[in-house]
Structures are given as structure tokens and as C-alpha cells.
């Protein structure tokens, strides 16, 4: 491109003093402020995450407290339609539960599983990637073989498999208690590969650089080298992967729960709610499944947008 004819820093500005100022003025902040879609996405994500966190306090009704449920309220349509009730803004389900409250609590579970599985995948992936890249040799080969094998299968299949196997291995009565951890494990294990590959690439590049060689010669402990030198360089791409991964993790969890394999029925996530509501689609009570669906899409979409923005903003080639 013609713009390549200019040297890389021809249009760069000298950094103003002060770290906070630098953040505000940085390329990152600039591209954020000038992209309305990204700002909207950030706002939506913030709102959803906050309302999920505060669910126990801001939900109009506690959907788990059976005492507050009244079967007479069952199938109440949304408040703005005919037959609606202002107590149930988004309507009520077959047990008289407020759909809005169910969604708020459901988002909590969805987000919890999403975040923890991404964290898990990132930790596993980054560690394995660092080991593979830095140590090389047979460690590298083994890890990369595993990655290759796993990559030839879609993540959902792997998650299904792990969930299914755990189910078969654990005795039935433990299912409900451990289901949450099983889901996190399943999703986490299906997505570690991308982190590993990226970090490994970074590690390989940094490892051959002179300052790392120097550190090794001096005798700096390998863990220190990894943590202080190699890791910071890989953080950028890892963040991008994590954000995009988050949306995927949330969707995967919803899918697993929809199939009946994810979180236990005592802690319904958005996917569980959708599954339950699906049964009533034909009889016309669409709100029980559609509103959780909208919440899910909103969450996934805004996280995806944030991830897209982050990727473009951190991509040196697009500057």
C-alpha cells in the first residue's frame, strides 16, 4: 500500500507526559471514543454485567423462593400486552416465576460460567504455550500434537464429550453439585488451544532475542524470564482471544444447557431458561423463551463487538 512508503512512525505523535493522560490520548482510547458501535457495546456489556452481579438485590422477585410463587400468575404475558401485569414486566412462566428475575439470575450463571471457563482456558493455554515455546524439544512436540489433534474437532463436540463422560463417571447424586464445575472444565478444555498457540509463537520469538539470551547467561531463573519478559509481550493477543472467547464460551454454555447437559436445573442459566421456554412456544407463550434469548444475544453480541474493536485496535498492521 502506498502508506507503507511512509516510515512506521511518520505519523506518530510524541507521547505527552503523565500516565493517565497517556491512556486517554493513546491510540486505544482514541479508536474507542470514535467508534459508536464499540461504545454502545461497552455500555450494554456493563449494564448486563452489573445487573447480573446485582441480581439478588435488584430482581423484582426471587425466582428460587417457592413461597413467593403463585400458580395463578402462571403464563402472565408481558406487562405491555393485553392481560399483562406490571408486577411481571416480561411476563411469567409456567410456575408463576417472573421472567425478568429469572433472566437476571440466569445471566449471573451464564456470566460466571463464561468468565471462569475463559480464565481456565487461558491459564491452561498460556501455561502450556509458554512451556512449549520456551522449552522446545519434546515438550513442544507433545503439546503441539495434542493441540493439533484437538483442533481437528469442533469445540462443542469436545465440550459435549467431557460433560458426557463426567456424567457417566460421577454417581448420580453428585451430578447437581458438580455440574457447574464440570461445565467450566468442559468448556475450558475445549478452548485452550488458541491461547497455547499464540503464546507459544510469542515465546519462540522472544526466546531467541538477545536480551533473553543475556538473562539466561546471567542465570536468571527461567520462571522470572517467562514472567517478566515473555509473558508481557504475549498479553495483547491473549486479551483479544479471551474477549472473543468469552462470547463463544457464553454461547457454548447456553448450548450445553439447552441440550440438557450444562448447568444443573437448580441454577438455571440463560440456556436452561430457553430450553424450558421452548416447550411453550407452540402454545403461544413465546415470552418465556424469547426474552432470555434476547438477553443471550445481547450479551454475546456486545462482547463480540468489544472483542472485534480490541483486535483491530491492537493490530499493528491496521494502524
Amino acid at each position, binding site marked *: 500500500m*502506498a*502508506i507503507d*512508503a511512509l516510515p512506521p512512525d511518520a*505519523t506518530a*505523535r510524541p507521547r505527552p507526559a503523565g500516565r493517565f493522560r497517556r491512556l486517554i490520548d493513546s491510540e486505544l482510547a482514541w479508536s474507542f471514543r470514535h467508534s459508536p458501535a464499540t461504545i454502545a457495546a461497552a455500555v450494554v456489556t456493563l449494564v448486563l454485567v452489573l445487573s447480573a452481579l446485582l441480581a439478588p438485590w435488584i430482581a423484582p422477585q426471587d425466582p428460587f423462593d417457592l413461597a413467593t410463587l403463585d400458580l395463578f400468575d402462571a403464563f402472565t404475558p408481558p406487562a405491555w400486552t393485553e392481560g399483562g401485569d406490571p408486577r411481571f414486566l416480561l411476563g411469567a412462566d409456567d410456575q408463576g416465576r417472573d421472567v425478568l428475575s429469572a433472566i437476571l439470575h440466569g445471566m449471573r450463571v451464564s456470566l460466571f460460567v463464561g468468565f471462569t471457563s475463559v480464565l481456565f482456558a487461558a491459564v491452561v493455554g498460556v501455561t502450556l504455550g509458554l512451556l512449549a515455546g520456551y522449552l522446545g524439544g519434546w515438550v513442544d512436540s507433545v503439546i503441539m500434537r495434542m493441540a493439533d489433534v484437538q483442533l481437528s474437532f469442533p469445540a462443542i463436540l469436545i465440550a459435549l464429550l467431557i460433560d458426557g463422560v463426567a456424567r457417566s463417571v460421577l454417581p448420580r447424586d453428585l451430578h447437581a453439585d458438580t455440574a457447574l464445575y464440570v461445565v467450566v472444565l468442559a468448556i475450558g478444555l475445549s478452548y485452550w488451544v488458541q491461547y497455547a498457540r499464540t503464546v507459544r509463537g510469542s515465546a519462540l520469538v522472544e526466546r531467541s532475542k538477545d536480551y533473553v539470551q543475556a538473562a539466561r547467561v546471567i542465570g536468571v531463573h527461567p520462571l522470572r524470564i517467562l514472567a517478566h519478559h515473555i509473558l508481557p509481550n504475549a498479553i495483547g493477543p491473549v486479551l483479544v482471544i479471551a474477549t472473543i472467547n468469552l462470547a463463544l464460551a457464553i454461547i457454548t454454555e447456553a448450548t450445553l444447557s439447552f441440550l440438557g447437559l450444562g448447568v444443573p436445573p437448580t441454577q438455571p442459566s440463560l440456556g436452561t431458561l430457553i430450553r424450558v421456554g421452548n416447550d411453550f412456544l407452540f402454545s403461544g407463550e413465546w415470552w418465556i423463551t424469547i426474552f432470555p434469548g434476547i438477553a443471550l444475544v445481547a450479551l454475546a453480541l456486545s462482547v463480540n463487538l468489544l472483542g472485534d474493536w480490541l483486535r483491530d485496535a491492537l493490530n499493528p498492521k491496521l494502524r
Partner: protein
Amino acid sequence: MPLLEVQDLRIELPTRRGTLAAVDGVSFAIEPGKVLGVVGESGAGKSLTGTAVIGLLEPPLRIAGGRILFDGRRIDNLPYEQMRRIRGREIGAIFQDPLTSLNPLYTVGRQLTETILTHTEMTPTQARRRAVELLGEVGIPSPEQRVDAYPHQFSGGMRQRVVIALALCVNPRLVIADEPTTALDVSIQAQIIALLKRLCREHGTAVMLVTHDMGVIAETADDVAVMYAGRIAEIGPVRDVVKNPGHPYTAGLMASIPAIGGPRDRLRQIDGSMPRLFEIPQGCAFHPRCPHAFARCTAERPEALPTGRTLAACWLHDTPEAVDA
């Protein structure tokens, strides 16, 4: 009449922090069959000028002022399709990296015949024969076999020869060579420059040779334009610019070329560095680094003033005789 005339060309780049002038008021002319060298540091605007001449500026870069005339006709404002017909046929181009200039998925012959067929009325068979001929002309051994080879099967120097063949295959009258040897081994560089020189002389092709290598210019060009911060510092016949530079920047460039033999002292350099696009100084762009700068240089941007046989944008030459002349 000059074959190519660039008048007061201004290329702007709108950025987040305002509009920058990457090329600001550049004027020069190339006579048919002559070689104009355009020399300067990275970022001086030389490649952009060449890209603008051949009409391949990509947005957000755009021509914001001035004119480009080819054979007396304006070409800077032509619609795409008309410019496309000129490209390749009348104005050719060679870029820096032969490795990435060729499509790896097509044979060399296919890329040649495609270009020939686009611009001429030949049949495919004739085009193929011509392609083989061309490969021979640029010095590729066994062209009848090599014509069906893929780019990755050639070495760097051979690839650049193929690129030259592609650029010259339908005999354009002007070729823009943008750093044609920078990516090659030093030993190959001389061969490629010699080839280019010979072919252009044989076909009467004018050349705009963009490079940062003064040595290549001295050997190959008839005239040279020295660019600095998007402006032309000095322009004139090559011998005069090199022997008697009129602009302090040119003088600095000449002085910093180490001479083999001769007294060994420290390498001379010009202190400081070329300003980036958004911090171009007022007045003369070079004045902060110029040993001869005076008050006027900081205030007014110098026009191109005659200094003997060259033109230099420097107030040092604003003598009474020059003003009258």
C-alpha cells in the same frame, strides 16, 4: 516538450490529528528517454510521488493540489478506466521487493502474456512467443523452459529481471522504478541497474528512478531531484548536483558518503534527523539542521532558486543577480 511534467504536486493524508502534507509543492519534468533520479531519506515522499504519477494512491492519501501532465495531457484527474489504459502501456512501474511483486500462484509466462494481451491485439500464441523473447532480453537463461516456471522457482535477482520484463513488455514510454535494487544482494544490484539502463536506452524509455542510494543515481541518472520532508531541496543535472551542490542538505549528503582511499577521519553526518510529517518546521524544512541557516530561513519557505546549473530551494541563493535573472 517534456514527457512527464509534475507541477506543484501536493499529496495529503488526513489523519486523526489533522491533515498532513506528505508531498508539498513538488515540481519536476522528465524529457523523453531521460532518467530522473529522485533521491532522499525514507519518508521524504519519493515513493508517494511515483505512486501518484501512476495513479495508484490509495485512500486516505489523495492528491490535494497541483497537476501531473503526461505528453501534455493531465492525468492526475482521469477516471479510473482511462488511467488504467495508460498504466502499463504508457507508464510502467517496478517496485522494491521482487518476491512479493509476483503472484505466487501463476507462472511467470502467464503473468507476462496476460499483460501483453491486455494492451495489444496479439493472439495468445504470439503473446507467448513475445513473453519468451522478453525473458531472453532480460537475461533469463533457457527462457523457453523458464516461461512456465513459478516465481518461487527463481532467485531474487532473476525475479527482479522478470519484474522488469513485465514492466517493459508493452514498451511504455516512462517507467517508475521505486527502489528496484534495495531488496537485492549488493552483487546483483549492479547487474540489475545495468540491465535497466540498457533496456531503457534501447527502447527510448524515460525513467523516474526513486532510491536512497546516491551511488546508483550518480551512475544511472541524467538529472536528479533531492527530496526532503516532502519537498524538493535541489534539482538539476546529476554531475552538477553531485559536484557543486547548491543546497546545504545535498552538500551534507555528498559529504557523508565515505570515500575509499583518502584520509581516514570520522564519518561525517548531518546532525538531527528528518522531521516527521506533523512537525515540519516553519520556513525551510531543513533549517534546524542547517549550518548556514539565518533569520529568513525560519520564517519563509524558500522557492526554487537558480544556483548556476541547478535549482535549489535555499535562501542562500537569493542574491541580487539571481533575482534579476
